């Protein structure tokens, strides 16, 4: 079996193993082992990838592996990675690793919980390694569906409602994607030639512009729903608010990135002409969601809602950057996905840990926690600083790359919306400091909070993992951004050629 | 032949009338048996069609006539089962009014 398929195999095997687990103890140990293995494999992959590149292997896709699946429809199981997918894979394994430890103490149906969680992650990994649109879509839906159970069973608050809403909206999105994919498939080759789902072959053949004009919006919107594109973002606040910790982490941290990744890999890459024509509509939408999400977050009272709205804002920035369609901005988009993935996961992890202690998420019911929970408090501050783009943490790198890239456009429209988007950094500062000020600083509001205990070892582990990743990206961004840049070059050339 | 000089249209008119009378009966009569009878009307109108077409348009072959024979046979079988069930209905509902038989709806 080839190396990449292991990324799908390991989670599946872990799930199989969990089936035989007796109790929570064994379950979480198995999951921990499995996900650590995954993390190890990822580190190896990153290393191997960089080594290949260093050795001068300039192929667009490395570690390619191809099996024909449905001959008559020319559907293949094709996997391969470039710098971008390697980055995303790394993100995913870090987050899932942290997620397992963040949900260390799941008492209700633990086996089922870990099974669905890890199954979900396998879908995500599969999505990132696939080069064949059919398989990609298959993994996409595998990643989306367990959400329903995870939120519905282990969630809090109006969980059934939120779970159903989230599932239906995302599935509505994937419905659009399905139509789009079929459209792409049946336009994937000149008449008389073998139709294909293969990303690169389609790109090589090129899709007739007429078809593009019809299918680009479908695909972009479809993926946009998962990327929390305004006005299809409303699943996100409720969904995140009701979801259990690890699920929020994985969902906001990784799953929402599937949207951005797909929009970029499928919609933009395969249909650059239409993208060029229609970008402005979506640019307006995205820049709205950037500012709108930020302002929306300012007045929220529930920690998770605040974070959900800030996610809307940050993911809006991702799509915004993607639509800018130049090397730097796209690079920024990927970086932003990574950065937001890490820090929002950290946020949700911390929120979950705080909620687990205070049993409330309403910021006005808490206060002065820094005194009783120094570790969590400091971690929360770090997350906040990352999210408001403090240099030395990942957020800054991503946002600056996006802004500089977006500002490279020569026409006034693009530059204007860029300025619009930059204003979000101030609003972000406002709501982050508001939370930090109320939640952590000041006097303790509730005397019950006086004797709370600080983070346990697994909580520390999960938090530290994420913080390390954030800092690593923030302090040494060059290797990452160069890795992405290398793989972006051909894509950007193709997009530019479409101009 | 005894059908000398009777044009095909006449047969068709009769069959069509029978067909629609049958439909009408099926839609309006409340008694299940009567509904069954109206089905028979429909089937027989079809028979007339087949025979008439056969002997007027395609006299050299006999598909139509055989078809009608089969239809008659099948109709008999259908009627048998139907009546059996109707008896069953009577056992359960103490009536064979069709509009009584609406325990399951929506």
């Amino acid at each position, binding site marked *: 079996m080839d190396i990449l398929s292991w990324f799908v195999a390991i989670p599946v095997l872990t799930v199989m193993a969990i089936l035989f687990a007796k109790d929570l103890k064994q379950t979480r140990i198995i999951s921990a082992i499995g996900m650590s293995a995954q993390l190890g494999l990822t580190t190896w992959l990153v290393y191997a990838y960089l080594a290949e590149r260093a050795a001068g292997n300039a192929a667009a896709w490395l570690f390619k592996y191809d099996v024909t699946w449905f001959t008559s429809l020319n559907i293949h199981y094709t996997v391969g990675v470039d710098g971008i997918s390697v980055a995303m894979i790394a993100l995913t394994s870090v987050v899932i690793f942290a997620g397992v430890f963040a949900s260390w103490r799941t008492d209700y149906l633990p086996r089922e919980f870990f099974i669905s969680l890890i199954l979900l992650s396998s879908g995500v990994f599969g999505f990132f390694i696939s080069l064949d649109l059919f398989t990609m879509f298959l993994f996409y839906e595998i990643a989306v569906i367990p959400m329903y159970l995870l939120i519905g069973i282990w969630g809090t608050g109006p969980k059934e409602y939120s779970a159903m809403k989230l599932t239906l909206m995302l599935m509505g999105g994937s419905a659009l994607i399905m139509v789009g994919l079929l459209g792409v498939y049946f336009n994937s080759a000149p008449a008389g030639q073998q139709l294909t789902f293969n990303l690169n072959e389609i790109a090589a053949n090129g899709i007739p512009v007429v078809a593009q004009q019809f299918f680009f919006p479908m695909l972009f919107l479809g993926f946009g729903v998962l990327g929390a594109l305004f006005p299809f973002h409303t699943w996100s606040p*409720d969904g995140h608010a009701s979801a259990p910790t690890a699920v929020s982490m994985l969902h906001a941290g990784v799953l929402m990135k599937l949207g951005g990744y797909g929009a970029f890999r499928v919609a933009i890459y395969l249909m650059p002409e239409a993208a060029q024509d229609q970008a402005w509509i979506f640019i307006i939408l995205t820049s709205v969601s950037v500012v709108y999400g930020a302002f929306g977050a300012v007045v929220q009272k529930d920690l998770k809602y605040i974070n959900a709205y800030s996610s809307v804002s940050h993911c809006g920035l991702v799509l915004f950057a993607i639509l800018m369609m130049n090397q730097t901005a796209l690079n920024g988009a990927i970086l932003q996905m990574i950065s937001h993935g890490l820090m929002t996961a950290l946020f949700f992890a911390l929120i979950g840990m705080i909620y687990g202690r205070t049993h409330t998420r309403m910021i006005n019911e808490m206060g002065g926690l820094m005194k009783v929970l120094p570790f969590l408090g400091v971690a929360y501050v770090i997350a906040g600083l990352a999210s408001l783009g*403090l240099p030395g943490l990942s957020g800054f790198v991503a946002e600056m*790359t996006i802004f*500089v890239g977006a500002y490279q456009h020569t026409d006034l429209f693009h530059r204007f919306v*860029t300025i619009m988007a930059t204003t979000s950094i101030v609003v972000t*500062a406002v709501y982050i400091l508001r939370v930090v000020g109320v939640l952590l600083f000041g006097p303790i509001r509730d005397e019950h909070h006086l004797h709370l205990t600080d983070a346990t070892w697994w909580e520390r582990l999960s938090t530290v993992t994420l913080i390390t990743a954030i800092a690593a990206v923030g302090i040494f*961004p060059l290797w990452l951004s160069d890795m992405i840049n290398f793989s972006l070059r051909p894509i950007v050339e193709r997009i530019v050629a479409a101009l | 032949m005894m059908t000398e000089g009777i044009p095909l249209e006449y047969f068709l008119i009769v069959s069509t009338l029978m067909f629609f009378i049958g439909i009408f009966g099926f839609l309006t009569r409340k008694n299940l048996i009567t509904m069954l009878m109206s089905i028979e009307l429909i089937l027989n109108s079809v028979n007339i069609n087949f025979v008439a077409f056969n002997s007027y348009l395609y006299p050299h072959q006999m598909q139509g006539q055989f078809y009608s024979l089969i239809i008659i046979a099948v109709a008999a079988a259908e009627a048998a089962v139907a009546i059996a069930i109707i008896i069953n209905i009577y056992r359960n509902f103490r009536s064979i009014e069709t509009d009584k*038989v609406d325990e399951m709806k*929506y």
Partner: protein
Amino acid sequence: MTNYSYTLFIPLIPLAMFLLIGLTGHKFKPIVSGYAGTLGLTVAAFLSYITAIRYFFIEGAVDGTYPMIKAVSTVWLRFTDTLHIDLGVLIDPISVMMLVVITTVSLMVHLYSLGYMKGERGFARFYAFLSLFSFSMLGLVLATNIFQMYIFWELVGVSSFLLIGFYYEKPSAVAASKKAFIVTRFADLGFLIGILMLSFTTDTFDFKTLTSLDGPIITSTAGASFMGLSVITWSLIFIFIGGAGKSAMFPLHIWLPDAMEGPTPVSALIHAATMVVAGVYLVARLFPAYAIAAPDALHVVGYVGGFTSLFAAVIAITQIDIKRVLAFSTMSQIGYMMMSLGVSGYGDHEGLGYMASMFHLFTHAMFKALLFLGAGAIIHAVHSNNMTDMGGLRKYMPITHITFLIACLTIAGIPPLSGFWSKDEILAAALHHNPILFGIGFGVAGLTAFYMFRLYYNIFWGTDRHYHHTPHEAPAIMTFPLLFLAVASVFSGFLPFSHMVTSDGKPFEAHTDMLVAIPSVVIALIGITFATIMYKKPSTIPDRLAGSIKGLYKASLNKFWFDEIYLFVTKRVIFAYISRPIAWFDRHVVDATMNLVGWTVTTASNKIKGLQSGQLQQYAMVFVSSVVILVLLFVYLISK
């Protein structure tokens, strides 16, 4: 050309200290962290002195110009092939000068805090933050390119946020820190936009390229213009907004007074000597660009500076809280520096203002730090910030008294103290370029003298309050910095600045202009005299005076109601008129629309349930009629 690469360690040592104390500080006794931090800073200071001596005196000017040396530089993040953020060390007159200023003041503050913060909770944290700040500030001044500067700019902002909010259980401190961060953040947005515009037009971040006379800015025939100003001008104005934010220029000044919530050493370090002058440094850094390519932008700088200096001086007169008085005087003095940059030209004697500004920056750092540390000692003694609770302290704390007096004389501009020289240059520069600004500066000189001595008398003379426990002189660890700084502020005036720090790096002869010097001294003396009359002995004159100019008095007392205005904008406009509506809209319009879809489907399914009536004949009816409809439909379709 000598190798300055070791200068890299000047910022890195404090960083190391920060990490060390931050991660392991809680393991040891607090004082250990204090010593560690101080030690680190001592080394850094030592290195910077070495650098300064080498740069100015050993190497000296290479064929008449002080060179701009990139000691270290490495690519940190690559945007495009031409645009990339480098991290490095830039050695040139102003950066070296700033190195000296920062490390000196910081070291003094480190020492001072050993006494001042003794026994505070979070002593270790305090020193960690101090080191972090020193690191960021040093990184800022050593920046080789504008983006590196932005990076450290942000870091400085955060460390100031952390230090202001050091007493995080005190709501007012939290509020102040929040205010400071957000206001400066807002200004930084301007900075960022400026950078974007600049980098887009010039396609570089590098200071060396940006400021070199044949660089893209100076040579660019900035075609695109907006409202009559070229893109370059606009971008430089935006960048200046960033500087104005950090340097608390009007109208972005509101955070500075509140920032006094932080521990006094912090105020001394950040909000008097170092961070607040970052704005000035930024403008100075890009000075050639301002002076040659965008004189309009430079005028903006000048006028903003001038106005701020006056505005702040007026407010300072009426404040009761001694730290606030000092804060406003800081604003006023920084306004001075800005103004003097604004009135400067490029090239030897034209660049007098530039030199003066840097000179004043230097001296001001010394005496203002001294003032704050003195104030700290006083507060330490009487446990209050209000001068109404003070008086006659000269008996109790002689050293503080003397040093404080020196500082006051210095800032008032009494020769031969350092303040006199730098202020004199500024006024001279203003006089030659812009009479109006000269007028302002002249007036401010008087006001400064007045309010400083008002402060001085109120603390050390005036009515002798009876304190619940007699105030005592601060311990030696605190008085030593006072003495040191006092010496510095006395003698730093004699540094031959015009030979070291000039707009184009070329030394020139600056001579004191009696035409300016004499009047400025006179007005300073007048100010002092008034203060003496009014405050030396307890008297009713102040109240009567206040009564006679009630309106102005109230306005000044309330800082011209600027906080209220800002509060209105944020609370009312942002919260009530933007965020809440958006949040409402999101729940009740966007989300409701999504729910509406679901609702429609379910209601539809309830509406049509009658179709399944359970009536056999109705089924048949539907069946037959739909057959008929289909037939008619298609016969029609086909016959067409």
